[in-house]
């Protein structure tokens, strides 16, 4: 009985200690490729990495909601998510989405037959970020992507 009590106390202190360690967690100002890849892997995101033309820029391509999504890492300072839609949307519809959206914006690219719509979200990591914040950024984007797919199919 005594042992059980001691063990419970130990567990309780470990829980309290981890909670306070979590409370004191610090944000980082730069997301390295290794960090970002570890976060994506922890989210079971199957990605393909390519390097940008400029040093320090990397792209991670993956699928979400049957769409090709690209995560851009600009020197660890900004993260950018986008997916391109070939569905014919006019500026009025693009604006309607922007009125109702929170975490994303839609942008019309090009004109005529070549016009596409990009659904975008950005995260400023230079101001501070954490693994949880980056995870939330991707998760939130995927949710809005799902809603955008519904929005354009109406």
């Amino acid at each position, binding site marked *: 009985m005594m042992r059980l009590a001691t063990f419970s106390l130990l567990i309780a202190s470990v829980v309290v200690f981890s909670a306070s360690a979590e409370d004191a967690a610090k944000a980082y100002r730069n997301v390295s490729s290794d960090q970002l890849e570890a976060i994506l892997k922890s989210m079971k995101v199957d990605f393909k990495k390519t390097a940008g033309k400029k040093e320090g820029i990397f792209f991670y391509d993956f699928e979400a909601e049957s769409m090709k999504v690209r995560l851009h890492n600009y020197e660890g300072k900004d993260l950018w998510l986008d997916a391109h839609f070939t569905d014919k949307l006019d500026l009025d519809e693009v604006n309607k989405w922007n009125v109702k959206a929170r*975490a994303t914006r839609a942008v019309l690219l090009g004109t005529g037959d070549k016009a596409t719509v990009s659904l975008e979200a950005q995260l400023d990591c230079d101001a501070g970020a954490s693994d949880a914040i980056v995870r939330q950024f991707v998760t939130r984007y995927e949710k809005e992507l799902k809603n955008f797919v519904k929005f354009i199919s109406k």
Partner: protein
Amino acid sequence: MRTAALALLLAAFAQIASAADEKISERPEKAIKELTVPHTESLLKSIGLDFKKVEARKADEGMFFDFKRGPFDVRLYNFQGKDLMLDSVFRPLPLEKLNDWNTRAKFSRACLHKDSKGPYATLESNLDVAGGVTETTVKNFVLGFEAELKSFDRFIGGASLGDDDIFQGAVADRLENVFKAQAILFKKQEIPQKNVTLYELTIGKIPMRLINFGGKDLILESKYPKIAAEAANQYNLDRKFVRVVVSAAKGNESTSLEAYLDCEAGTTEAILRRFLLAYEEETREFADYVRQQSDSKQAAK
């Protein structure tokens, strides 16, 4: 008797010596009217600075000393021993913002410069040596610049401050801390049935609204005259971290500039401050854009 006399004499000497010591410590420091490069080096070493000496390209520009103070890269310029300047480089900022700093700062000035790589801002401070300074003045000048840099960095919502502790919840309290620290005027309105708090803010004379959705999401918005949908789309294409929305509601035709911050996974005071102050810069640039749109519309008529 002899011993007593000797003791008295020694005591008298000790008193004289101690009075002389007091006089030495009270004596004003020697004034310097020219600070040589070796003297600058020895002063910097005496305050524990690990610096790199750089010779200026032009002879009349003197010598530079590069070192770090906290997170900041600082350069000390010694102009022929006659005057000293400290500076540190920051991202480019709107002239209005730099002017705001210059109207409130005592010991520094903020400037916008341009070189082949583009514009950049600096925070600068000068010390005239030719009029006479002491070693302590020079040491205080160098060491005191860090406080000025921290304060400027806070003013521009910089990314190099120490308040990076992640917190979840209590976003409203932290937001109000930031408002107070930045001297941001605000009016608060709670809408409990929607779990929403509205803040009417004025940052740098620009009125804006901040909507706090239960501490999970924050949206900043400001209103402008209506612009064409194509112009709004072009702005969204060119910018990051903001969204332009055109409202076509009858009797309320306007354009909104919005910024969003997701706090659900936690945030920091530094993130909140950057969110607010970066948005302030965005509003200035967007106001210019709206003006340009209006001007070109007028010109086309």
